Each structure stands twice: as structure tokens, then as C-alpha cells.
């Protein structure tokens, strides 16, 4: 007479445990970068960090909540302008202003969501683009913030970040590192939570998840506003580093959406590992081909099209499906344990 087997619900796998160790080592190395990296390398790393963070956020929206937005540049721009307004006019310390910029972006994300959620699918995507344009055109009318030509961050604000140029660059670097870790952490812990389970259910099948009691609207709303918050923070950092903002730069579709989408698509939608692979590939391609201007952009477009047609789960998807790999353990697997029958 056999006993019924007991089971356990497990998360981590050998691969994920190994990845955790490697990740911590990498993090320590990166944190120490100001010691071993030159100024140009630090700048490059900052760029990689904020593109990776943007990609994680876009991936969360599109890959998990099914919200394909072509308007996230709205929150990058809003975050940037909020930083300039808060620290330039209200005297808020820049580093605090970065966080508050995220709050501003989140607050504006609420009415935005209420409006754009009336649309579905591809129409939702274009709707978000329209909203981003509205923000861009509106900011261009605000002469206090530089109007159409933009403004530079006031010198005294720049100086208040830290004493000495090197220290300022290091500080901005650590903030950038902190932000990308935050972005990945937000995605990771969200997916591991109950909300995350709801998200995966929504991603797999909306009607099914609704019939099980998942409140799709509220979950999506929550994710959208959260992503707006983090994206606003990222935008604030970007323009703190650039020291100058203008409507076209702040709300650029190419810079903050096209490249981000490319990164996520090539790397692999719907998995945390995807954007990491994607951002590496993106920067390699940029190093190799950016000098070719339009041909480089055409290459990016063509690669994105090819990947979508031939390997829709991206490069990481190809690898992960083949070897059933998951480095960030968000799945739950049921492991059956055989129990010995009573003698």
C-alpha cells in the first residue's frame, strides 16, 4: 500500500543559485568601478545601467502585464523635467529630487492610465505615444523650464551634488548602479509575489485569469503606475548626468523607446534575463556600427524584425528553452517526493 507522495514547492535551481553567487561578485566589482575604471568607462557603464533599467521596466509592462507602450518616453521626460524643476527652482537636493521626480511621474501616470486604458492592444500602444507627445508639446510651452530649446542645470545645483568633479561623477555612477539594481529588484520581487502570479496568469490568458478572480484592470493599473515611478527616477538620473534638458531630448521616441524595445526584443521578452542579454548586445552593436549612422539604425531595425519573425522569445528565449534555464528564480515548481510505503 503506497502512501500518496508529498510535494514541495521550490523556487531556486542549481543554475539560479550559481547565478546568484556570480551576480553578487559582479555587483561588488561594479560598485568598486570608480577605483578601476576611467571617466569614459564610468560614463559608458552609467549608460548601460540606465538602458538596462528602462528595458526591465518596459519588459515588465509588455512581457508580463501585456501592456505594450510606445510612450514610456513620457515618464523619462517627466522625471527629467521634475528633477530640473525641483532642484533648479525649489532648491531640493538633487539626490532627493531624483526620488521625488519618480513620485511626480507616478502621480501623472494615474490620470494617464485612466485615459489610455480605454484602448486595447496596438491602439493602446499608439495612445501612449500620443500622450507622450502631449507632454512634450506642453513642456515646450513652459518658458520657465526653457521652452522649446530647453535649459541647463544651474551651476550651483550641480555643485551641490558633491564637492569636486570626480566625486560628483562617482556619486552619479553609484546612483545609476543603485537604480538598475532597484529596477531589477522591483521586477524580481513583483513576479515572486502574489501580484506576480496574477501577472503571469494575465500574460498567459486574460479571460482565464479573470475567471479565476484576478482583477486584471487593477493589477495592470498598479504595474503601469509602478513602472511610471521607476521610469521617472531613471529619467531624472539621465538628465542629472547630462546636465541639460530639452523637450526633444527628454521625450525622444528613438532614444527612450525604440532602443529600449530593441534591447528587450532581441534579448527576450517576458524574462528578467532577456534585457540583460539585450543590453549587452545593443552596446556591442553600437560600439561596432554606430559610426555608420543610418545603416546602423537600419541594422537594428532589421535585427529586431528578424528576431520577432524567427525567434520571438529572443536570444535568451532560445537558450533558456533549449536548456530549461532560469537564472532569476521566479517560477514555482512542484517537486514530488517519493515516500517509502509502510512495511
Amino acid at each position: 500500500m503506497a502512501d500518496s507522495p508529498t510535494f514541495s514547492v521550490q523556487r531556486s535551481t542549481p543554475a539560479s543559485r550559481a547565478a546568484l553567487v556570480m551576480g553578487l561578485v559582479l555587483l561588488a566589482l561594479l560598485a568598486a568601478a570608480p577605483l578601476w575604471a576611467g571617466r569614459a568607462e564610468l560614463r559608458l557603464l552609467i549608460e548601460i545601467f540606465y538602458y538596462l533599467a528602462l528595458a526591465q521596466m518596459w519588459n515588465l509592462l509588455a512581457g508580463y502585464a501585456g501592456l505594450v507602450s510606445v510612450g514610456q518616453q513620457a515618464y523619462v521626460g517627466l522625471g527629467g523635467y521634475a528633477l530640473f524643476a525641483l532642484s533648479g527652482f525649489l532648491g531640493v537636493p538633487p539626490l532627493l529630487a531624483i526620488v521625488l521626480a519618480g513620485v511626480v511621474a507616478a502621480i501623472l501616470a494615474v490620470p494617464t492610465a485612466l485615459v489610455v486604458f480605454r484602448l486595447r492592444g496596438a491602439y493602446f500602444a499608439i495612445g501612449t505615444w500620443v500622450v507622450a507627445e502631449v507632454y512634450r508639446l506642453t513642456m515646450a510651452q513652459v518658458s520657465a523650464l526653457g521652452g522649446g530649446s530647453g535649459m541647463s542645470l544651474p551651476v550651483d545645483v550641480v555643485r551641490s551634488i558633491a564637492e569636486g568633479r570626480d566625486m560628483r561623477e562617482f556619486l552619479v555612477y553609484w546612483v545609476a548602479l543603485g537604480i538598475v539594481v532597484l529596477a531589477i529588484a522591483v521586477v524580481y520581487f513583483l513576479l515572486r509575489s502574489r501580484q506576480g502570479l496574477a501577472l503571469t496568469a494575465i500574460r498567459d490568458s486574460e479571460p482565464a485569469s479573470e475567471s479565476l478572480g484576478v482583477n486584471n484592470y487593477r493589477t495592470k493599473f498598479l504595474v503601469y503606475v509602478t513602472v511610471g515611478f521607476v521610469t521617472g527616477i531613471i529619467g531624472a538620473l539621465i538628465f542629472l548626468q547630462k546636465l541639460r534638458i530639452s523637450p526633444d531630448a527628454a521625450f525622444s521616441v528613438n532614444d527612450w523607446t525604440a532602443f529600449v524595445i530593441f534591447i528587450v526584443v532581441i534579448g527576450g521578452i517576458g524574462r528578467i534575463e532577456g534585457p540583460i542579454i539585450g543590453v549587452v548586445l545593443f552596446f556591442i552593436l553600437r560600439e561596432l556600427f554606430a559610426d555608420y549612422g543610418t545603416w546602423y539604425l537600419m541594422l537594428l531595425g532589421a535585427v529586431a524584425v528578424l528576431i520577432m519573425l524567427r525567434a520571438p522569445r529572443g536570444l535568451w528565449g532560445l537558450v533558456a528553452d533549449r536548456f530549461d534555464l532560469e537564472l532569476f528564480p521566479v517560477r514555482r515548481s512542484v517537486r514530488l517526493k517519493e515516500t517509502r510505503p509502510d512495511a
Partner: protein
Amino acid sequence: MDWLNAIVQGILLGGLYAMFATGLSLIFGVMRLVNIAHGDLIVLASFLALAVVEGFAMHPLVSLVVVVPAMAAFGYVLQRGMLNLTLGRDILPPLLVTFGLSVIIQNALLETFSADSQRLQAGALETASLTIADGFSIGVLPLIVFLAAIGIIWGLQTVFYRTALGRAFRATSDDATTARLMGIDNGHVFALAMAVALAVVAVAGVFLAIRTNFDPSIGPARLLFAFEAVIIGGLGNLWGTLVGGIILGVAQAIGAQINPGWQLLAGHIAFLVVLVIRPQGLFPKMQG
């Protein structure tokens, strides 16, 4: 009088916007595909017209004879060779592929023609106007565009409701699987729909090129106008799209009248207002 002029200009501009929107509406109606590269395809047609006009020293309107069939053929091949592969239940592939296509087209145009602003010369047509009353006149060209938009929509309605091809379009739109049981080759029908849509895009592109300065980067803005006209008018209704275009044109004209820098913003705001109070649009015939 200024205001009356502005509003009439807006109405006629709406005809051009409706022309932008018609192709988008048609494609969504038949195969639920939203083509992010739609605006860039309009600009592609504009540049194609430029090349033809400069190469053969013909009048821009005559270039339609070349541009329309060329774009239609391109549409057929594009749909059959690439976009058909993206259709299915997932919304991401068509969106992302057409997004990639948009980037490719913009940069290909940039590479071929440079970023310089261009304009097609249509001679006397550009400045000719009809004087209706004292101080009130209508440009002939905008009027032609508006009438062409009406003609195109009327033509498409005829195809849709009175021909076998139109029947096939409607059936495939209703139920693509059962359409196959009737002997309809969906791949071919979708490609024909795209060919028709790009033929309309070709006309829109030529008129755009005559009316305004154009360059490779103006595609996305045209996509937004087309999209707004479709949403305001209501999905699945071509005449509704005309109304949507007119509303958008009038909103922009009013905005421009108040302050030239507010033209685009006024249009977008009008769209958002409609989206909030009547999200299904004014005359919807189908679900999004």
C-alpha cells in the same frame, strides 16, 4: 472671417487626415493589424513621387500613375512576404515588426534622400483659390484633396459592399477560419487588402508632398494623426473616419488660430477628450 477661414481650412485639412486614416482603418478592419510604419509608408510614397517627378519631369498629380501601382505592389509583397507571418493571437509580433519596419524605412529614406526638407511643385494649383464671398476663399488644392478623400472612401465602400473581393474582405474579417472553408486564401486576401491600403497611402503621400514640406522624419506624426482620426470616428467605419479627420483638422485649425505653437497640441487634446467621453468613437461599427 478669420475664424470662418480657419474652420474651413480645418475641414479641408481633415480630408487629408481622413486619407491618411483610411488605409490604417482598412487594414485593421480586415486583419486586425495596426501598422506602426503606416506614417512612414505615406512619406515613402511622397519620396517616390519626388523621384518620379524629378526623373521624368512630370507634374506631381501625373506621378500618381506610377506611385499608386508601385505602392500597391509593394504592399502586396510586404504583406505576403513578411506581415502575414506576424498575424495570430499575440499582438506583439505585428507591433514590433512594423515598428522595426518604421525605423528601417525612415533611415533608408534618410540615406537615399538626405534629411533636407522637400516639396513637390504643382504649379498654379498650389495657390489657386475659389472666392466664395468677400474675404472668404477656399484653396483649390485643399478642396481637391478633400473631394479625393470622399471619392476614395466612396470607392472603398463600393468595393466592400458590392464586389466579390469586398465580400471576401468582410468574411475574412468576421471569421478567418471559416473563410478558409469557403476557399478563400487568407494570405492572398490580406495581401490584396494591404495593396489597396497602400494604394490609398500613395495618393495621400502625393497630396502631402504637394501641400507641405516633407522629410524622412515626419512619418510618425502622420501615423498619430491617422490613428486619432480613426479613434475619433469609430472603428470599422470609413465615413466615420472622414468625420474623425475633419474634427481633428478643425481642432488643429482652431488651436493654430489661437496660437501657432498650439496646433498639434489642440489636435491631440481633442482626441483625448473624445477618448475620455466616448472611448468607442462617434460611429463605431466594430470592437477594438
